[in-house]
């Protein structure tokens, strides 16, 4: 556990200081209790001997004052440690994930990250301090007391000493089972959370199926499973928990019996008997508390494991002598094969894009178009084969240089919750007003801005929710213009935009493509975009099925010709009565 905590925080200083402080406090606590021995020996007589007790009493007073001072110091140190730990961990996590390949950022991983950065970081830091301290105390006070008792009677001390390992062994077992049950219960709770979301989204479907009031069968299963695993956990932890408490209490009874027996047999004076009994009570109490701490410790451990698993994600390997400049903007795939884990998404794909050319990628959904774009931007590394940009293998390029020369227009455009201007400036923080306006104009974003109440200063809402999909895509295209990167990768919106947006977006994409200074690769869905391309690469099931100039390919009876006419037909689709279907 301590080792795991150590791994989380590269700066051990604060943990060490805090640990040391509490260790001192614990030992001091034990020694203060130990002072009871000479004090009570002197005083527990028919005529209390204050004279003999005086030096010990003074020592005790001094010790108590020291203890107070240390406690007062420890309080703020603990607070600031907890804050520093949390803040440090949060920054560490965010900095780390910023070096991860883009492919890592799936919905699941994003949820994991959010949890790690907020609740887990906070809890770990909080618990490391508020649980760590009493845990140290609970361990060290009993040990110190044993030392003191040893001085009085080694046999009794031996009983004390035997209790500790037995207690720790049972505690370990209780802790392990608690941890397993915790994980199981958490999974059950996560399942309920997922089903709860589904319950909201699928409410109409469920009601139409007459399952409105009962929820789906899976929902009911999830609820039952949660209760069952809760009960299972309780059942499993029953014996270990009971054993631990029994060990501690049994220890107490044992000490009590042994001491009394020693007293009655005359080998312990009655003063020492009393002192030992007083110490026995103080010895067992912190030990008994450990079982209450163990749950929290395990919860902390689980949080630590969750954080660590993110920090253990491998980053994209960096070349030692990475090239830090691109001479030209060509793109080349050479025998590229790549899979997301199952069947390959791309198989032996090879093609070339000359600098300044426009390439359209077409193919049925799932044919690997998006993967091509992802590999160029190095969201992932290929399994075999090479992706070259500017003639250099992307793995040998400094990632910053690569991304500096690429602008991507995604199908689903994500905007940050700030103003339009801020979102545009991301592409180029030092852009002048004129540059901003030129980019907006080229992307036909200017008319959107004009219409908005606060123009450039309009806040776009979380994820850009206050703009429509087409408007968001226009922002994204404007970014590409503003960035003036030599390579632009576009995933043309497949879903229906309203007519006005559709026109604006395809016009803006056309402008990007026409500029001879840019190498453009576009996943195209619209006949106009296809027609404007210098070359078309048709993918099917991860392989290049056809490649060539669009006009030539239309003449053949290949996949491109088929898709092209399908696109045309789709645009002329109309809903009608059954009688005049198949038109």
């Amino acid at each position, binding site marked *: 556990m301590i080792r795991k905590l150590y791994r989380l925080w590269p700066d051990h200083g604060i943990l060490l200081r805090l640990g040391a402080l509490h260790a001192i406090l614990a030992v001091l606590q034990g020694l203060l209790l130990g002072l009871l021995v000479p004090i009570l020996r002197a005083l527990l007589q028919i005529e209390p001997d204050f004279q003999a007790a005086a030096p010990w009493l003074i020592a005790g007073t001094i010790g108590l004052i020291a203890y107070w001072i240390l406690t007062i110091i420890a309080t703020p140190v603990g607070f600031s440690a907890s804050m520093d730990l949390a803040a440090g961990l949060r920054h560490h996590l965010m900095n780390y994930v910023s070096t991860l390949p883009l492919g890592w950022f799936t919905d699941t991983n994003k949820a994991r990250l959010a949890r790690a950065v907020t609740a887990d970081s906070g809890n770990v830091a909080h618990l490391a301090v508020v649980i760590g301290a009493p845990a140290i105390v609970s361990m060290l006070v009993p040990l110190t007391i044993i030392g003191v008792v040893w001085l009085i009677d080694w046999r009794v001390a031996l009983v004390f000493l035997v209790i500790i390992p037995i207690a720790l062994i049972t505690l370990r077992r209780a802790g392990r089972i608690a941890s397993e049950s915790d994980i199981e219960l958490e999974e059950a709770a996560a399942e309920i959370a997922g089903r709860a979301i589904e319950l909201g989204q699928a409410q109409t479907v469920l009601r139409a199926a007459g399952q409105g009031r009962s929820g789906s069968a899976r929902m009911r299963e999830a609820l039952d499973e949660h209760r069952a695993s809760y009960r299972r956990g309780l059942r499993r932890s029953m014996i270990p928990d009971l054993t631990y408490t029994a060990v501690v209490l049994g220890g107490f009874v044992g000490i009590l019996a042994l001491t009394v027996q020693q007293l009655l047999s005359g080998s312990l004076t009655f003063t020492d008997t009393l002192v030992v*009994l007083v110490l026995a009570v103080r010895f067992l109490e912190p030990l008994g508390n450990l079982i209450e701490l163990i749950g929290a410790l395990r919860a902390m451990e689980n949080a630590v494991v969750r954080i660590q698993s993110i920090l253990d994600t491998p980053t994209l390997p960096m070349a030692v002598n990475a090239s830090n400049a691109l001479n030209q903007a060509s793109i080349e795939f050479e025998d590229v094969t790549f899979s997301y884990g199952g069947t390959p998404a791309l198989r032996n794909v090879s093609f070339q894009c000359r600098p300044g050319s426009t390439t359209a990628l077409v193919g049925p959904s799932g044919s690997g178009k998006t993967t091509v774009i992802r590999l160029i931007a190095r969201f992932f590394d290929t399994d075999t084969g090479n992706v070259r940009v500017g003639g250099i293998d992307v793995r040998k390029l400094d990632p910053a240089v690569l991304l500096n020369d690429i602008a991507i227009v995604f199908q689903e455009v994500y905007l940050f919750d700030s103003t339009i201007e801020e979102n545009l400036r991301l592409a180029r923080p030092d852009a002048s007003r004129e540059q901003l306006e030129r980019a907006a104009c080229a992307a036909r974003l200017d008319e959107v801005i004009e219409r908005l109440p606060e123009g450039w200063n309009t806040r776009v809402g979380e994820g850009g929710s206050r703009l429509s999909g087409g408007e968001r895509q226009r922002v994204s295209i404007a970014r590409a213009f503003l960035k003036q990167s030599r390579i632009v990768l576009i995933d043309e919106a497949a879903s229906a935009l309203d007519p006005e947006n559709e026109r604006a977006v395809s016009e803006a994409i056309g402008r990007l493509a026409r500029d001879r200074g840019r190498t453009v690769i576009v996943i195209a869905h619209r006949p106009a975009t296809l027609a404007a391309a210098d070359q078309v690469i048709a993918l099917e099931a991860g392989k290049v099925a056809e490649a060539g100039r669009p006009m030539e390919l239309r003449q053949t009876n290949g996949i491109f010709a088929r898709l092209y006419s399908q696109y045309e037909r789709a645009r002329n689709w109309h809903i009608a009565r059954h009688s005049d279907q198949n038109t």
Partner: protein
Amino acid sequence: MGNNHAHSHHETDVTPDISEGGKEHLAKSDALWRLLRPVRIKLLFCAILSALGAAAGFAPYIAVAEIARNMLGSQEVDGNTIWMWVIIGAIGACLRLLLVFASSRLGHYADAELLHDVRVRIVSKLGVLPLGWFRDSGSGAIKKRMTNDLEEMHQLIAHALGELVGAGVAMIVGFTYLLMIDWQMSLITMAVLLVMVVCYRIAMRSVTTHMSRLLAAEGRISAASVEYADGISVVKTFGTGGRIMQRFAAAVKEHTHAMLDWVTETKYSSAASRLFSSEMTVLGVVMIAGLALVAADKLTMANLLPFLIIGVGLPTSIMPAIQGGQGIRKGRVAASNIEELLNRTALMEPDQPKKPVGHKVELDQVSFSYDGVAQAVDEVSAVCNPGTVTALVGPSGAGKTTLASLLPRFYEVTGGSIRIGEVDVRDMSSDRLLSSMSLVFQDVVLLRDTVTENIRIGRPQASEEEVREAAKAAHIHHVIEALPEGYNTVLGSGSGGLSGGEKQRLTIARAILSKAPIVLLDEATASLDPDGETAVQAALAELSAGKTVIVIAHRLHTIRNADQILVLDQGKLAEKGTHNELLARKGLYSRMWAAQQKGESE
């Protein structure tokens, strides 16, 4: 169990627990009590056992103290009496072990049962809420009620209650015993504890303010990290992550500052409460005061010993009582959140539901307003006959989608009425109403379940064969066959591997299977995925055949052949007719048509 053990450590601790729940608003105290109804008996026994356990727990301590008093009181050591006390102590210890253990178990079992009970109640409540509620509140709210809010109550039910009662009893028994021995020393011991409680109260005085500030800061940290991750591709490709990271850094900083302010403000009181709750302090005070009294002959050493044994342990045993307040506060807030949901007005169900005759849809002077001021739909009347296609068109914001969502009673009309087969939709049971129509909108809802079950939910009693037939009719059968486990592939677990258009066709298969006579359709659906577009369109044609079809249209050429077109403008029915009739009128429709034709040809 659970993750909320942070409070069970036994030292006064005012470190703000960041898992602290929700903003404190005036929680109705009885909400909690009502929610606990099914487990009240269990909780009562939990409390009783905890009380008995706490009382029994004093036996060993009292035994030690009595042995000491016995030995100091007389020079003659009375072996029998001492052994008697040893046995009493041992029995007390065992009893305590069993009783406290049983109490804690009972509390946890009650928790397990309550979680289940309340969740079942929430699920069935959701089943009768107006559908509009789901659109407005979002699924996140449901998730919060069913998980986070309930977990907030865990601490209270499984821990706080038993601990609170136990601590109370421990205090009463402990002090009663001490009072019997020496009242002066008892008062002194009590004074230390009182000072501790006062300091703790002072330290926690501003907990609400600080906690909400901390929570807000934490919310910002969370938002910034999610935002960063969501926008990571933008951040990376534009190489300007720094700006976004600043927002994260600022949130972290604000969190630290909030904490720091709190700590600074409560520096003295929290240090003091820590000091006075320390066993060492109590020990020191008891020793000093006790020895002074002994020196003054007001107290015997024998009577000082119980204070050393029991008095010193008291802060530890009453701490839960002081900290338990937090658990109760959290539990109350959560309980009132949950009750708020359980008390929401359900969709009005007719006492005597009527059965529709046929499937003619009639809109009779239908009006609807979201806010009671602006009319989103304004006195629209129309008749949609079975076997015909009705198109809803109009500029964005004209009320097309709103009008369509009144049919399945997502929202209740605020004026006029909607009739299906001569029966007002409000006079039909909502199950019947919903099963009479297929809703094919852009947002595809798949259940995390097998393909078969996802289609079968359209008609739960359908056979395997019928499910396949529906899939074939929706042009999705071959896609399903190609999935790793065919019809048994579990969808929605991230590996489903269906494209947007394919998911769309799956829901169309579901609709086909349901054989609902009314089809509500968003035209944009048909062109969601151009690659599979033709297949989706063919599937839709299959679905619509012979039904009462109502389609929300964006691209006018898709509905040229509709039997009637309702042109909406600002909620009002501006025009009505066939494509050719409307073109001839040269009104809004013909202007929209002209504009779109121009756009297409560009």
